[in-house]
């Protein structure tokens, strides 16, 4: 098995999960409480990666990262190298691609929190932000952990977007799923099957953990 690809996949999945906890939780908290009339628009944008073919998403991300777009140009002038076909570019793409896998379980868990708990905290003089960290987040912890685990597993196995945005550069953008594809192309079925079996085992374990967490009642 390609150890370099394995390490890269796990690093990518871990960083993506971390990034989505930072970005996804505020978005989910907003979705769980907002009564804004255009909220369905935001929900649709978040869910788009679920239905779009990875090649379509990857294509747009590639264009956005390229030197033709203002974002791509700004990146190059700041960091001195393009975002496309780099590990950083892969990370950005993974975050976008896995957004619904994090935000949807987060939002479901947060909207299941009894609003009276939040109100009780407010009457006790605790600010909205502190209430989020002291009440909403701990009470919805099982759902948030489930979302994070799903994000990790999903990133570990992604293929299409990675290929479009990252290509196949060993040590930089070559992930486990790309390694499998490569092995099959070279008719190296033994390597492909070992790697595939490994990913299957990881995915299955992750799902078992997720569903066990979901079954457990809220701490108390």
């Amino acid at each position, binding site marked *: 098995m390609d150890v370099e690809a394995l390490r890269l996949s796990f690093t990518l999945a871990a960083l993506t999960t971390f990034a989505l906890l930072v970005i996804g939780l505020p978005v989910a908290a907003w979705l769980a409480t907002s009564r804004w009339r255009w909220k369905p628009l935001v929900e649709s944008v978040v869910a788009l990666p679920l239905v779009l073919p990875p090649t379509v998403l990857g294509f747009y991300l590639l264009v956005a990262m390229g030197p033709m777009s203002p974002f791509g140009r700004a990146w190059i002038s700041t960091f001195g190298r393009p975002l496309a076909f780099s590990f950083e570019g892969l990370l950005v793409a993974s975050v976008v691609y896995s957004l619904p896998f994090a935000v949807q379980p987060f939002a479901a868990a947060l909207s299941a929190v*009894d609003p*009276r*708990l939040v*109100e*009780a*905290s*407010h*009457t*006790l*003089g*605790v*600010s909205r932000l*502190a209430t989020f960290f*002291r*009440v909403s987040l*701990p*009470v919805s*912890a099982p759902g948030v952990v489930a979302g994070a685990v799903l994000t990790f597993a999903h990133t570990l196995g992604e293929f299409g977007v990675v290929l479009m945005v990252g290509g196949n550069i060993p040590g930089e953008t070559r992930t486990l799923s790309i390694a499998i594809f490569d092995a099959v192309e070279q008719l190296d079925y033994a390597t492909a099957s070992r790697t595939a079996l490994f990913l299957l085992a990881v995915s299955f374990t992750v799902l078992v953990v997720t569903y066990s967490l979901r079954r457990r009642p*809220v*701490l*108390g």
Partner: protein
Amino acid sequence: MTGKISVDVRRSFPGGAGVRAAFDEPLAPGGVLVLFGPTGSGKTTLLRAVAGLDRPDAGSISFGGEVWFDSAAGVHVPPQLRRVGFVFQDFALFPHLSARGNVAFGLGGLRLDERGGRVEETARLLRIEHLLDRRPAGLSGGERQRVALARALAPRPRLLLLDEPLSALDAPTRERLRGELRALLHHLGIPSILVTHDRVEALALGDRMAVLVEGAVRQVGEVDRVFGAPADEAVARVVGTENVVPVRLAGHEGELVVAEAGPVRLLAVDPGNLPAEAFACVRAEEVILERAPGAATSARNHLAGVVDSLVHEGPLVRVTVDCGIRLVALVTRSGAEQLALAVGVPVAALVKAQAVRLVPRG
């Protein structure tokens, strides 16, 4: 700490029902103002507006000279800054924290070394010291209620708000805790506003009460006065046709307890654990009228008096009898005709001892 609460708010809901309520009450330390009304009358909406949890469409709310809400001036003080204690109907304890964590939750403004002492002190007041390390899931209904009270009281609020604090409890626990809660509220040294739809609760816990009907405050006054003399028909319908008489308990007669209301003696079944001062409640439907004192009956209370007024209400007649106390009887039209009831006619009012319900007053 004496504060005056002034509320004049309007709030509409998509369903059509709305609240348009105003009252203006001085709140004494230890005093309890009851917001009384049937389900959907808007009393919880009003309480939430006072707490700052709901924002009315228009109007103003002030307490102790401080403006909490004023739609015209664009003022809405957030709940965090109002320093009120709020006890929710189902207590809303934080499930992920121990009782200690719940009680300490609002003590962020205190120095760290003071928090433990405040938790212990509040726990002693509520007698929950032995429960502090348990999670809410491991507490009984009555224990949760006391933890919820402790949590609300620990930061020393200026005003305590209670939303149906006994309704989530089973009947025996409710009976037991009602007296405890009354004693607690009266000894706190801060005023309380309590929402209830239960008459016994209103009588037992309240000093003054505001009656809400369909989103509007219809009457404000001393609890027994409001029950005894509803301002209008809507209030009468809500508070029920109930005779509420302040009485002093003056010993026992056999197994029954003697309650004195001025010159009038009432015999009642002893509910136990009564203080000397109580309210005697008799439903008007349970007062029987008799023209001349005649044969012996099984009713223990025979009160001689004269008819003071007669009001026809469909098939029924509401008869007020002056027999030392004013007693309202609800009799059928044919019954009234048979007795030839008219103003000034002497009658006797018969009330069974078990129809006299005694409610403590503090």
